[in-house]
């Protein structure tokens, strides 16, 4: 997809995210909206995958470690054709394939059950090690949150990927600054990120996570790095695209009411 096509597509997916959470009257808009630009570029322009055969063994894998951004993942998976878009209306409802947090056994295209934070990067290491053993050339993409980086397991996995020289792993840090209780700097202060990841032996790329050119360049650069894992530190805005949700911690895990939903959709449609 070129930049114009991406812009239109991302807007459509942002609308799907808002509607999913509105329909469910539950879910996490902030971290979904900060992540969706990156996911759209990744699934459309970089990942080797087949929605008609979700378990094709040569596929690139995407693991959403910050599982509460499931609306972003479900929007892109439905758009790619992993399941009918009507399923999005059943998000977070009884007997739905779309659980509040990603569930491996329930949803085609979901690689790992995540949501309990800190666990996805270790899983990605396992997938990457299997790729090395089997001499497969797939890549393993794993999105983690900045608040999530307060979990010690992230750094256990960071050592693991570095120790085993897993250059088939590309972690993406959705650096949107906010966690439920406030600014990550005020809560646990997991920063500085660049220095930490370099110290853990990773190749670090820093980008604006809403700029398609920068996102694309980062994924291209990842492909050229050998002997060590790559992390893309993506500066993002929580709630990106909906004015009243942007940089507002209140929208971490809250559903819009009808008036708010309509206003959000109106803003997003204006972009089209």
């Amino acid at each position: 997809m070129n930049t114009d096509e991406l812009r239109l597509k991302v807007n459509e997916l942002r609308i799907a995210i808002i509607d999913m959470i509105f329909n469910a009257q539950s879910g996490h808009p902030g971290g979904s909206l900060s992540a969706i630009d990156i996911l759209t570029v990744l699934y459309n322009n970089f990942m080797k995958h087949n929605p008609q055969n979700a378990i094709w063994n040569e596929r690139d894998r995407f693991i959403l470690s910050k599982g509460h951004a499931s609306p972003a993942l479900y929007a892109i998976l439905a758009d790619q054709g992993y399941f009918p878009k009507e399923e999005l209306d059943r998000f977070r409802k009884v007997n739905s394939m779309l659980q509040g947090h990603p569930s491996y056994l329930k949803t085609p295209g979901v690689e790992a059950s995540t949501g309990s934070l800190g666990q996805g990067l270790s899983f990605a290491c396992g997938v990457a090690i299997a790729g090395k053993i089997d001499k497969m050339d797939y890549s393993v993409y794993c999105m983690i949150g900045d608040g999530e980086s307060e979990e010690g397991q992230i750094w256990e996995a960071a050592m693991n990927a570095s120790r085993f020289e897993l250059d088939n792993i590309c972690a993406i840090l959705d650096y949107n600054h906010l966690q439920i209780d406030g600014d990550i700097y005020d809560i646990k202060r997991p920063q500085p990120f660049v220095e930490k990841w370099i110290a853990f032996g990773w190749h670090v790329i820093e980008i604006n996570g809403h700029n398609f050119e920068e996102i694309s360049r980062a994924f291209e650069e990842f492909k050229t790095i050998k002997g060590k894992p790559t992390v893309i530190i993506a500066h993002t805005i929580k709630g990106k695209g909906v004015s009243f949700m942007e940089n507002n911690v209140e929208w971490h895990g809250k559903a819009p009411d009808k008036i708010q939903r309509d206003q959000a959709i109106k803003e997003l449609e204006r972009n089209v």
Partner: protein
Amino acid sequence: MSEKYSLRKVYGKTLSELGDKYKNIVVLDGDLSKSTKTEIFQKKFPDRFFDIGIAEADLIGTAAGLASCDKIPFVSSFAIFATGKCWEQIRNTIAYSKFNVKIVATHACLSVGEDGASHQNCEDIAIMNVIPNMQIIVPSDDVSTRFFTEKIANIDGPVYMRLPRNETERIYCEDKEFKFGKAEILRDDGDITIFSIGLMTNIALKAAYILRQEGIKVNIVDIITVKPIDKETILNFLKKTNKAVVCEEHEINGGLTSIISQLSAQYLPSHIESVSIEDKFGESGKWNELFNEYGLTEENIIKKVKVLQND
């Protein structure tokens, strides 16, 4: 005295033999491969062995990822770390997705000995049993350990297998074929039934020998598969005797005593006594001295059988 076998050595050796037959077996350890004996596999298959270091949460997550790519990861550490430090990772990344990961823990409960309570996990069966999709095996000797090390590679889904630190005597014939999910009946001509697991099966056999000399006959059922529990065999014996002693090297809450008492309460109310560890922590000491201290003995089994006899 008959020969004793180290079950963890048998595990490590069997694993190294299985490596040729099962190309998709990979082994992961958390800096304890010399103790869990996975180093025997490592020596033969260095490319399929991964020391994840002192990082059990990462150990479990990495194993789940490998399983998602059709590997059969065997993950080993001490029972305290392999189940306790990463319980939620086991629940969320392995069991919820039904991934084919085999967690084989050594150094369970008091068998740890001198290292003391911090390292003696006497709650492992309880915390694994409550996780949906989890399956649990507790071998009682070297033959059952060897058999189930291979068997669990052929069982789909997550398995927890529990081994002790110390050595124990052989119970079964070397070529014995076990069935997953089926308890083994070792004595069945008694009026009281002993249900046991792990190291306690050998101790129960000794108690039965002494009791027989006093003219008291007991049945002995070696449970081995704790989950899914062999409800049919357990209820058959409860129906026959209505009195049972449950013997386990585990704390009384949540282990085999709880599981069998629950079955009894639901289907066949019976008088059940328990030889297990009370709701308390262990301590340092030689494993056999600790077994005496905590009542995991022939004498205690005999005492409980007599309580039932007089009931």
